[in-house]
């Protein structure tokens, strides 16, 4: 907490100077935070339920106090500087967040509560953080200042990003499942499909995006129809095609293994009691492969959220736009404005898909997996 909490820059591109808590937010808040840390150390040393509870409480309070420090501190610093000045978070803030979380997890592990209560302790901090962001608590920080100035552009690219991922993953999954099934049916198809999807996975994303420009622009130049429906060498089309190609491998592979891992005796019995091919697929193979196929789609989605950032390079837009703009202008805040939502989106997608997979497996009987 004695490190630099803020870095004040005269404008968004210049290098900044560091400030600690007392300099920026005043002594009172610094003392409160200090006392909270002392309490944490004391209650951490005593291994009792009550002290563990206190530990969790202190760490969460410390988190909230830190948030307040960030806001008031940044506000105070801005008052002194010129209008174009920006404040970005420094080492002290990141370390404090990290420390709070180590303590919170330790407290949660020591408490004899059930999962639910532990989750409440763990997720209190992030919940407050999100509420704080949306209520404008960080408006003085540079990244939010960046957001304010780009607000409409941000929303546009944010939804564009989701659109790119959603379209390409749905198309990739559909195609991947079909290819996976045909790979199960026919050995030759299997070899070809796996060869192509494996190779395509090894092409660097940047190269694949670039590679698609030439043939697509040639096509759209040749056929006016394609041009009319918006297929061009740059923009959404090559990005979506590339993302679909990347989505294929996990989906194809998981569909194939999902069906192949089914016990042969189960299929034999199904056939033996008089199910036809379609009934075996619908009643036995599809439901038994579903969790594994969904796992493939989950991998494809999370991967696409990240890869779609690169798509901005060929004019497809998305959150990657901020990253490349930020890189071009050497404006780190702008890079963060693209990066943080991508990470959040990836984590959300991952958790959401895991939830769906869990629901599917639970419906197929308890405790099988």
């Amino acid at each position, binding site marked *: 907490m004695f490190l630099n909490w803020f870095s004040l820059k005269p404008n968004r591109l210049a290098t900044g100077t560091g400030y600690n808590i007392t300099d920026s937010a005043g002594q009172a808040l610094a003392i409160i935070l200090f006392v909270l840390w002392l309490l944490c150390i004391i209650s951490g040393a005593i291994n009792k339920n009550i002290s563990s509870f206190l530990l969790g409480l202190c760490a969460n309070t410390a988190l909230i106090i830190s948030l307040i420090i960030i806001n008031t501190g940044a506000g105070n610093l801005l008052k002194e500087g010129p209008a174009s000045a920006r404040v970005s978070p420094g080492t002290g803030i990141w370390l404090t967040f990290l420390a709070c979380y180590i303590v919170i997890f330790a407290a949660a592990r020591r408490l004899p509560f059930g999962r639910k209560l532990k989750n409440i302790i763990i997720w209190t901090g992030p919940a407050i953080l999100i509420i704080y962001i949306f209520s404008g608590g960080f408006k003085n920080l540079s990244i939010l200042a960046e957001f304010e100035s780009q607000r409409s552009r941000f929303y546009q690219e944010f939804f564009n990003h989701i659109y790119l991922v959603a379209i390409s993953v749905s198309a990739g999954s559909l195609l991947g499942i079909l290819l996976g099934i045909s790979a199960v049916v026919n050995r030759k198809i299997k070899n070809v499909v796996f060869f192509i999807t494996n190779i395509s996975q090894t092409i660097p994303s940047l190269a694949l995006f670039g590679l698609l420009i030439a043939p697509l622009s040639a096509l759209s130049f040749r056929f006016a129809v394609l041009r009319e429906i918006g297929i061009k060498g740059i923009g959404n089309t090559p990005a979506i095609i590339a993302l679909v190609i990347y989505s294929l491998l996990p989906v194809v592979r998981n569909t194939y293994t999902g069906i192949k891992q089914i*016990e042969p*005796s*189960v*299929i*034999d*019995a*199904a*056939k*033996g*009691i*008089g*199910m*036809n091919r379609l*009934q075996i697929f619908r*009643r*036995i193979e599809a*439901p*038994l492969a579903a969790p594994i196929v969904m796992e493939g789609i989950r991998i494809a989605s999370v991967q696409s959220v990240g890869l779609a950032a690169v798509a901005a390079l060929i004019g497809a837009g998305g959150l990657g736009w901020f990253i490349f703009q930020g890189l071009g202008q050497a404006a780190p805040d702008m890079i963060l404005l693209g990066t943080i939502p991508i990470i959040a989106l990836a984590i959300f997608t991952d958790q959401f898909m895991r939830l769906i997979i869990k629901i599917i497996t639970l419906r*197929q*009987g*308890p*405790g*099988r997996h």
Partner: protein
Amino acid sequence: MIVLNNITKIYNQKTVVRDFSLKVNQGEVCVIVGPSGCGKTTTLRMINRMVEPSSGDIFIDNRDIKKIQPDKLRRSIGYAIQMVGLFPHMNVFSNIATVPELLGWKKDRIKARVEELLLLVGLKPEEYYAKYPHQLSGGEAQRIGVARALAADPAILLMDEPFGAVDPLNRIRLQTQFLNIQKRLGKTIILVTHDLDEAIRLADKIAIMKDGELVQYDNPEELLAKPANKFVYDFVGSDRALKRLSRINIDKYIRPAPSIKTGSSKEHAHKMCGPCRWIWVVDDNNKLKGWIDIDILSRSVTVMDAVSGINPSEISVTRNSSLKEALSIMLDQGLKTIPVIDDNGFLLGEVDMAIIENALTEKGR
């Protein structure tokens, strides 16, 4: 009635089944037995068209099965396999209900049928409905598998090593249950196994296969008494006399046994023992208590004191037993004569060594 006419199956130029003919009558249990790789499973699978014969015809009730659509044919034939193959994502109820559902039965009819079948295979319906295959023991899964095969009440049942994956103790239990169920249902059953003892226990007719060919087709008694060739002789083994005894029910060989009541006087007991020098003792309800030996009797005060101390159930057999069981107890307990009792322990009569010997020679002519 199932008829196989000159069936041959060739896989990749290798003949797996060669010119195989068999006739199984309505309500019979036919067991196909032979070493592994002899083509018995392939033969079985040709009957429900899981495998198509290279040549030859199969008729079920005089209908050529080639003219019946495979799915329809299979729905009319029960099919149970060693690996059971229960559907892991469905509970017991849905597993058993599969075929009736395929046949489009009404909901309450299916429910009634599933309940009936679970009771038939000796499992409590309420307890098992909602269980999933991975929550079942091997024996339970096997029984659910049989229940599923019987679901649409098929006249024919095909079973491929149905008790193969179960431990020996449970296998005997399942076999006994199988016989009881079959006694009630009277299905036409073709069962494949490599275990000759199982075949002898369950079969009305045994078909022995070797290298894709039918070597001998007979009822178990004939097969054991007159092996057709060296292969069958060796396959049946040197203990075929014992195996034959296991097929012979004791019921017909019981002879009346003299006995005295526990309350009889010593003099009466002495007189009844006669030249044998011993006699069975029963209580007033004719329930077997043991026997008395004339030498011990003379040293005792009352008849009751002289009765042998062994629990009567250990030295007796019931009327459902085979001669093999009787012989085994006689050898075990060192007896020359063994009492036969009914389920309530009442003395029915006795069987001795000479009777068993006669039974063997008489059957083995």
